[in-house]
């Protein structure tokens, strides 16, 4: 039996009636210090900002092709007064080395940076919304609104048609909305912030308005001369995905009965990605009808490029001009 006396009366109605309590066979704990987040479990309560958050699950994340793993430092929570559902991000400092082909970059998880970005983009619906607050042990807890929407890559993957139809029917809308989200990244950069983890699953299509929203800003990396280079790479990868509807590796071409060796023979190492040479950026070798201006943008990220983007603004300008050229 749960002893309800440690809990403030104002949270009891929602706490007692929540399904998490019905199956709990232990006394829930109230955590005001989230330093050791591994101790915080389903059914426990996190008390920050004078709000009581019941832990009802964990966010999951997996790299593409890898099973999703629950992130224990990112509990899904339920506000025991308002009934609002949120996501909390607890402090988890980690470093890891990102390998890009032969090159290595050290990446850092930085809660403080995410808190600063949340402050900067408050009210800007191109980004996830939330705020940060210190717990009793001065850990910076981020209280995030849940974005109700679909991942960009999931939305693209759901479209069931050939590439010609995709280009003529769907591509324009994806590109125009993506252009606005590129503009949002420029805003961050102008304020000295990197997004830090630009990937196609970190763009959510808002279920109501349909615009794209960036999520997850806690990564940082150390590139003193090219601080925004990885953000640029991320944007190039997303554009490649939007234009091609998937990524093509040379082996994919060989295994595709419609392409096979005939297309593979036309490929050169210059057509592959600049950093890791693992995917084909010269998409016109796969889809010859793709407008050249879009392909030219992709080629900036290819091994064969002689011109590189210095800033996201340059990338934006080219994309905006290409959209105008193709669609008016």
């Amino acid at each position, binding site marked *: 039996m749960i002893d309800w006396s440690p809990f403030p009366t104002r949270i009891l109605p929602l706490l007692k009636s929540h399904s998490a309590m019905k199956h709990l066979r232990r006394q829930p704990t109230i955590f005001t210090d989230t330093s050791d987040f591994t101790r915080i479990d389903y059914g426990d309560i996190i008390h920050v900002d004078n709000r009581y958050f019941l832990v009802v699950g964990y966010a999951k994340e997996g790299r593409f092709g890898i099973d999703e793993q629950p992130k224990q430092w990112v509990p899904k929570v339920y506000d025991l007064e308002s009934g609002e559902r949120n996501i909390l991000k607890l402090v988890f400092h980690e470093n890891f080395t990102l390998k890009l*082909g032969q*090159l290595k970059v050290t990446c850092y998880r930085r809660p403080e940076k995410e808190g600063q970005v949340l402050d900067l983009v408050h009210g800007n619906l191109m980004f996830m919304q939330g705020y940060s607050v210190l717990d009793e042990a001065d850990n910076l807890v981020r209280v995030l609104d849940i974005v109700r929407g679909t991942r960009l890559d999931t939305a693209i993957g759901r479209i069931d048609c050939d590439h010609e139809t995709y280009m003529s029917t769907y591509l324009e809308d994806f590109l125009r909305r993506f252009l606005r989200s590129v503009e949002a990244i420029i805003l961050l950069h102008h304020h000295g912030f990197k997004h830090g983890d630009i990937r196609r699953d970190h763009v959510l299509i808002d279920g109501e308005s349909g615009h794209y929203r960036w999520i997850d800003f806690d990564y940082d990396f150390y590139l003193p001369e*090219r601080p925004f*280079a990885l953000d640029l790479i991320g944007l190039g990868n997303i554009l490649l995905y939007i234009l091609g509807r998937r990524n093509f590796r040379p082996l994919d071409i060989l295994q595709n009965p419609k392409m096979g060796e005939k297309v593979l023979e036309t490929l050169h190492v210059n057509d592959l990605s*600049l950093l890791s040479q693992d995917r084909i950026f010269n998409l016109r070798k796969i889809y010859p009808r793709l407008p050249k201006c879009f392909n030219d943008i992709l080629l900036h990220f290819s091994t064969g490029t002689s011109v590189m983007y210095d800033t996201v603004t340059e990338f934006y300008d080219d994309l905006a001009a290409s959209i105008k050229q193709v669609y008016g």
Partner: protein
Amino acid sequence: MADWNNILIAVDELESSLRAVEYVGQVTRSVDKVAICLLHIYPEPPPDFHLKGGILEEYQTQHIARAEHIFGRCLEILVGADIKREAIYCTTHMTEGRTISDTLLLVRQKGNFGTVVTGKRGVSKAEEFLFGSISNALARRCNDFTTWIVG
């Protein structure tokens, strides 16, 4: 117009820097009123520096000591090329919210240097994209001064 005889050499520990210094020594040895500034720029510490208990003052002291060592080698070359010691001075800067090339350009502007010299490391395209290239940044942005890139 900035003074071309007021020369800024960006140096680090690489051989390409020493070649740049040697080049300047050779081409300016007979030039009157030449003034040379040896500049070493180092980056701000990584994001987790303070979290790991790093002390900024110690970090700066280490980099300044490293710079002094680099300057020593450069001075030997310049003085050996008959450049007067009093025509040379050395300075070290940490990037503060700027890139290395932005810091270099700021020092150039403040010092009214008409010539900026740097060695060329010879990086791959992938390295240039990710880590940048000071010589390429200078080549692109030398609008009201002259750049010598020494290969």
